[in-house]
């Protein structure tokens, strides 16, 4: 897909005559990337679909307040991640699960997901990832699966590059430990 000029797109988005048409372009450009980010956080396709919709509705309603201090992509990622974390916290509250406890509801989601076609090794890796705290999980997925640069991750998550590197290192160690455990 042709890379869109963010500055021009932003100008068009703010113009009431071209706003809707430009937003369609924005959705087409970013929906897939944002979906996968959300999906890896919440695992369920249906939940990811709902959160993606909420993300775009929020972006649509707040685009006039976006000052362009960060990249449009970064801003969209932030909304998507915030929505995902809010969703997970709500789920945990409903299930009386503390943030530090293992997310049993996510494990159940993974087990019963019809849109999962990975083998046993991949399922085990996903289970290992689920043992990580939300932020560490996010860092691991962005780096390991999406191969995102630390600088970009730093813009999205508002965390220093050094802290992200440390977080990724700890996440990797925890996952390796989990995978090496006899079962």
């Amino acid at each position, binding site marked *: 897909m042709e890379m869109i000029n963010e500055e021009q797109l932003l100008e068009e988005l703010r113009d*009431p005559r071209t*706003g*809707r048409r430009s*937003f*369609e372009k924005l*959705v*087409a450009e970013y*929906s*897939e990337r944002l*979906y*996968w980010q959300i*999906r*890896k956080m919440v*695992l369920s*396709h249906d939940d990811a*679909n709902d959160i*993606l*919709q909420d993300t*775009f*509705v929020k972006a*649509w*309603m707040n685009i006039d307040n976006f000052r362009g201090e960060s990249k449009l992509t970064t801003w969209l990622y932030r909304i998507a991640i915030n929505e995902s974390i809010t969703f997970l916290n709500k789920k945990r509250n409903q299930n009386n699960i503390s943030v530090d406890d293992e997310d049993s509801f996510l494990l159940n989601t993974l087990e019963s*997901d019809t*849109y*999962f*076609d*990975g*083998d046993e*090794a*991949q*399922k085990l*890796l*996903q289970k290992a990832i689920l043992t990580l705290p939300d932020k560490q999980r996010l860092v691991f997925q962005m780096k*390991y*699966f999406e191969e995102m640069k630390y600088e970009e991750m730093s813009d999205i998550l508002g965390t220093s590059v050094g802290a992200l590197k440390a977080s990724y290192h700890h996440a*990797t160690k925890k*996952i*390796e430990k989990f*995978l090496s455990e006899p079962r």
Partner: protein
Amino acid sequence: MKEADKRNPFTVPENYFAQFNKEIMDRLPEKEYVPPQTVSLWDRVKPWVYMAAMFAGLYITINFLTKDTETPLSSSQDTFSAISEETPANNYWSTVHVTEEEFYRYLEEQLVDDGYYDYMYNQLYLN
């Protein structure tokens, strides 16, 4: 961890993204169009005019108050200096305008008068 594990194990329903992109546009709420407000020249300069007026008022008030307190001071000083300058001890000759001759005559008269009074006193009370 093996490189092969990096493959995305999650899937989506067929045609999901194309469908999503179409559907989301129908779900977007209508936004109220707020026309950009035209700001008149007066509205733009109003704060500056108010501020200038405030400073001018402040200047006039301070000026008035300091003048008011300084004037009596200076006038009293002037009066004082005028008085002090006009005291007989300092400016006797310049203000009375009597000649030296007239002055001696005055002294003589005084001495004569004093002598007369002394004589009468002695005559009446001491004898």
